[in-house]
C-alpha cells in the first residue's frame, strides 16, 4: 500500500471560555488505513472530530486535505469535501423507513416525485452489498435494534462518495457478532482506499482493526504509533498519563466469595411482565454483586427495570428482608432502599439542565418528601462531600450536569443514589461510554460498596467486566433467565457457553 497522506492537521488548538480543549495537536490520516483516535473523556477527541467536520473552527492550526489547505466551514461543507461522519448517537429518523433514512436527500426520482419502488430496491441492494444485512427496507427504522440502526447510519454515510469516514464510537451499542460484522465492512472499505478515523473506548477493538493509533490527553497530542508496536498496557499508560507498572496493580484482583451463607435481602419469585420479560426467580444477599450477563436485548435491562418497578410487573412476588412488598413505582422501590442507574444516562438518569448539586440531592429529597426541603447548606455539603469522595471533576457544584464528561456524569448518578443510603443498587451499564481511567475507578467503587454491605445488581455488555466484578452471574437469553453461575463457574468461557447455548 502506498503511503499516501489524505489529511493532515497541524498544530490545531481550540479554546473555549475557561477551557483549553486542544493545544497544538497534530494528526494525519492516510488513504487505506484505519486510524484509531484514543484518549479519556475530555481528552479532546470529540473536539478534534468536530473541527474536522466543521462544527467548530480551530483557533490556530491548518488542515490540509489531499494536498490542499482547506477551511471546513460547516458539516455540510465537510460532506462536500468528502468527509463522512457517523456519530455515537444514531441521528437518523426512527419513524421513517430504513430506505427513506438511507436515501434521504438523494431519493430516486421519476417524473412525478419520488419513485418509491426504485427506492426500496436500491436500499435493499445497498444494505445487502455494503453491510451484508438482510432487513426489510420498508419497515420503520425505529422497529430495529439500536445496533441495526447504527449499521444503517454507516451505510447511509457510505452512500455518499467519501474519502474519509469518521466513526465516533460506532460500536458502543453493538454486540460482539455485530462488531465483527462491522469490522469486516471496515476492512473492506479500507481495501477500497478509504481513510477511516475510528474512535472507541474498547481497547480490544482498537487492536482488532487499527493500523495506527493516535493518543490525546488533556487536549494535548501524546503521539501517533503503529498499532502493532504499541502494547495494550503502554497504550493505557499513554492515555491515563501514569506509569504502566502502577496500572497493573490496579487490575481487579480479589477472591470470589460464595454467597449462599449470607443474609438474604431480596427474594424475587416469578417476577415477569407479559411480552416484556418471562417470569424469573432471583435472590440477592447482603454485600453481594450479582452480574446479569447476556447479549444485547436478552433481558438484562428489562430485569433491572422490573426490579426497580420502572416497568410494572404483571406477575410475581418480591420479598424484601423476608417481607412481601408491593412495588408499583420507582418511588416504592426507593422507599425500600433501592437505587437504579439506568443504561441510558442522558434520557433516563440525569436531569441535564439542573446543577450537579441538584442532581445529587434529587433522590434523597424525593425520598424525604416535598415538605422536608434540605437546606441550601445541607445540599451543598452533601454535594461537596460526594464531589470529593467520588472525585467528580467539575469546576463547582452549580454547573449544569450536562456539561460534565460521561464518566463524571455517571459518578453524579452514583452519588445521587449513595446519598439515599441504599441497601440495593441496580447498575445498568455504569461503565458504558466512559474512559478507561473512570471505568476502573467506578468498578473499584462498586467493589467498595459491596464491602460496605450494599447489594448490587451489575449489568454490563462487556463480559470481561461482569466476570471480574460479580460474585454470582445470572445469564439471560431471549428475554428469559436461562442459567445462574457461581464460584468457579464464573469464567468467561463458561458464561459465554451459557449465553450462546441453544435451547434443547
Amino acid at each position, binding site marked *: 500500500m502506498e503511503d499516501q497522506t489524505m489529511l493532515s492537521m497541524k498544530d490545531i488548538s481550540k479554546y*473555549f471560555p475557561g477551557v483549553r480543549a486542544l493545544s497544538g495537536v497534530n494528526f494525519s490520516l492516510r488513504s487505506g488505513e484505519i486510524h484509531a483516535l484514543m484518549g479519556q473523556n475530555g481528552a479532546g477527541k470529540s473536539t478534534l472530530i*468536530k473541527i474536522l467536520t466543521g*462544527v*467548530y*473552527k480551530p483557533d490556530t492550526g491548518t488542515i490540509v486535505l489531499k494536498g490542499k489547505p482547506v477551511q471546513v466551514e460547516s458539516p455540510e461543507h465537510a460532506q462536500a469535501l468528502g468527509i463522512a461522519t457517523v456519530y455515537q448517537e444514531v441521528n437518523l429518523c426512527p419513524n421513517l423507513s430504513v430506505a427513506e433514512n438511507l436515501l434521504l436527500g438523494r431519493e430516486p426520482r421519476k417524473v412525478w416525485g419520488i419513485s418509491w419502488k426504485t427506492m426500496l430496491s436500491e436500499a435493499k441492494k445497498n444494505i445487502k452489498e455494503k453491510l451484508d444485512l438482510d432487513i426489510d427496507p420498508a419497515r420503520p427504522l425505529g422497529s430495529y435494534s439500536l445496533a441495526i440502526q447504527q449499521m444503517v447510519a454507516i451505510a447511509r454515510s457510505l452512500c455518499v462518495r467519501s474519502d474519509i469516514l469518521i466513526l465516533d464510537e460506532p460500536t458502543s451499542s453493538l454486540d460482539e457478532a455485530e462488531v465483527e460484522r462491522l469490522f469486516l465492512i471496515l476492512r473492506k472499505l479500507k481495501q477500497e482506499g478509504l481513510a477511516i478515523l475510528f474512535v472507541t473506548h474498547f481497547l480490544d477493538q482498537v487492536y482488532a482493526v487499527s493500523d495506527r493509533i493516535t493518543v490525546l490527553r488533556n487536549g494535548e497530542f501524546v503521539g501517533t504509533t503503529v498499532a502493532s508496536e504499541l502494547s495494550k498496557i503502554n497504550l493505557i499508560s499513554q492515555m491515563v498519563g501514569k506509569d504502566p507498572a502502577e496500572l497493573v496493580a490496579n487490575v481487579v484482583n480479589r477472591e470470589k466469595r460464595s454467597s449462599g451463607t449470607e443474609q438474604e435481602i431480596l427474594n424475587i419469585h416469578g417476577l415477569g411482565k407479559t411480552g416484556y420479560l418471562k417470569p424469573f426467580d432471583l435472590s440477592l444477599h447482603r454485600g453481594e454483586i450479582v452480574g446479569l450477563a447476556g447479549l444485547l436485548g436478552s433481558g438484562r435491562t428489562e430485569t433491572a427495570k422490573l426490579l*426497580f418497578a*420502572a416497568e410494572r410487573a404483571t406477575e410475581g412476588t418480591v420479598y424484601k428482608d423476608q417481607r412481601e412488598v408491593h412495588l408499583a*413505582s*420507582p*418511588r416504592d422501590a*426507593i*422507599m425500600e432502599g433501592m437505587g*437504579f442507574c*439506568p443504561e441510558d444516562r442522558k*434520557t*433516563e*438518569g*440525569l*436531569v*441535564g*439542565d*439542573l446543577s450537579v448539586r*441538584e442532581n445529587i440531592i*434529587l*433522590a434523597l*429529597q*424525593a*425520598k*424525604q*418528601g*416535598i*415538605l*422536608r*426541603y*434540605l437546606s441550601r447548606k445541607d445540599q*451543598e455539603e452533601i454535594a461537596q462531600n460526594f464531589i470529593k469522595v467520588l472525585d467528580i471533576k467539575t469546576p*463547582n*457544584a*452549580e454547573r449544569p450536569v450536562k456539561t460534565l464528561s460521561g464518566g463524571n456524569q455517571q459518578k453524579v448518578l452514583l452519588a*445521587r443514589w449513595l446519598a439515599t443510603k441504599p441497601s440495593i443498587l441496580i447498575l445498568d451499564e455504569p461503565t458504558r461510554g466512559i474512559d478507561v481511567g473512570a471505568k476502573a475507578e467506578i468498578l473499584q467503587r462498586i467493589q467498595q460498596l459491596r464491602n460496605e454491605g450494599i447489594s448490587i445488581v451489575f449489568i454490563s455488555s462487556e463480559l470481561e467486566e461482569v466476570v471480574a466484578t460479580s460474585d454470582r452471574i445470572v445469564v439471560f437469553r431471549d428475554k428469559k433467565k436461562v442459567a445462574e453461575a457461581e464460584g468457579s463457574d464464573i469464567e468467561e468461557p463458561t458464561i459465554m457457553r451459557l449465553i450462546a447455548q441453544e435451547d434443547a
Partner: protein
Amino acid sequence: MPDMKLKVRPLNQFKLFWPLMVLLLLVIINVFLTKDFFVIEWKDGRFSGILVDILNRSTYIGIIAIGLTLVIATGGIDISVGSVVAISGAVAAYLIGGELVLQGDQQILVTRTPMAVAIPAALAVALVLGMWNGVLVTRWKIQPIVATLILMVSGRGIAQLVTNGQIITIYYTPYFFIGNGTFLGIPFSLYLLLAVLALVIVITRKTALGLFLESIGVNRTASRYSGIQERRIVFWSYAFCAFCAGVSGLLVSSNVKSADGNNAGDLFELDAILAVVIGGTSLNGGKFSLGGSILGAIIIQTLTTTIYSIGVPPQVNLVIKSIVVFLVSMLQSENFRALFLFGRKNAFARGAV
C-alpha cells in the same frame, strides 16, 4: 460558599434584564407620548392615575401567569385559562344573582346565595376544571395542548350555559370590592396578586416543589426514576393553574360588574402564555421565574394601555402588540443577542457549545 453564590446571582438577574429593559423603554415612550403618565392623584380615598390603572389591570393576566408558570415549568401548557375565567365569573355572577331590587329610591342588596358561598363555589368549579385537565394529561397521557384545548372550546359553552346565553349584570355592590375596591388607597387586586405570588414563591422555593417541577420539566423519566411523584405534581399544577384562572375570573367579573360567557377572558390564554415567556420561562419546561411572569404581565398591560392612550387605530393595535412581543422574544433568544449585539463570531461559538 459565598463565592459560589456570587457566580449564580448575576445570571439570574441577567434573565430578567431584557424584560426590564423593554418595560423601561415602554415607560420612556409613554413619558413623551402619554399625557400625565406619571401623575398619581389622590381621589375619593384612593390613588388614581394611568400607572395605577396599568398595575390594576395587569393583575388579571398576572395571577393566571403564576399558575401557568408552574404548568409550563413541568413542560406542559394550559390554553383553557381564558374559558375558566369566563366560567368562574359566570358561576359567581349566577350564584350572587342579577336582579336590581329597589325599595323606593333605595337599592336593596339581595343575593341568590350568600357571597361567602358564591366565591368559594366559583373557585371550586375552577379547581375541578383544572383537575379535569390534570387527569387528561397525567392519567390519559393526552398532550397538554390538546387536553386543554378541549376545555378551551367547551368551556365557553359551559359558561354560556351557566349564564343562559345572556350577560348577567351584577347589582350586588359588596361583590364589586374584589375588582374595584381599594385598601389604603391601593387596588385590592394588587394585594390579591401579591398574596398569591408570595404564597406560590414560598411553596415552590421553601419546599422541594420548585426543584421537582424543574426536574420534571427537564427530564420526566429521570425524575420518576428518582422517586419524584411526577404524576401527582403535574396533576396539581394543572389544578392550581385553573384555580388561578378562577381568581382572575372573579376579578374580571367584579371589575365589569357582569359576567359574559362569550367574551370574558377572551384571548387571556395567549396573553398569559406570553407573560410567562417574556418573563424568561422556557416553553420547553425546566427553570422558571415567577417574578419574570409577573413582569411579563405588567409589560403586556403597559403595552395595551400605551396603544390605547397614544391613539393607535384599533384595527392595527394587535400588529403593534405583536411587534413588541416579537422584539422581546428576540431579546430573550441567546442566539439572536449573540448575533446582533455581540458580533457574529460569538454566535457560532455559543450555538455550537
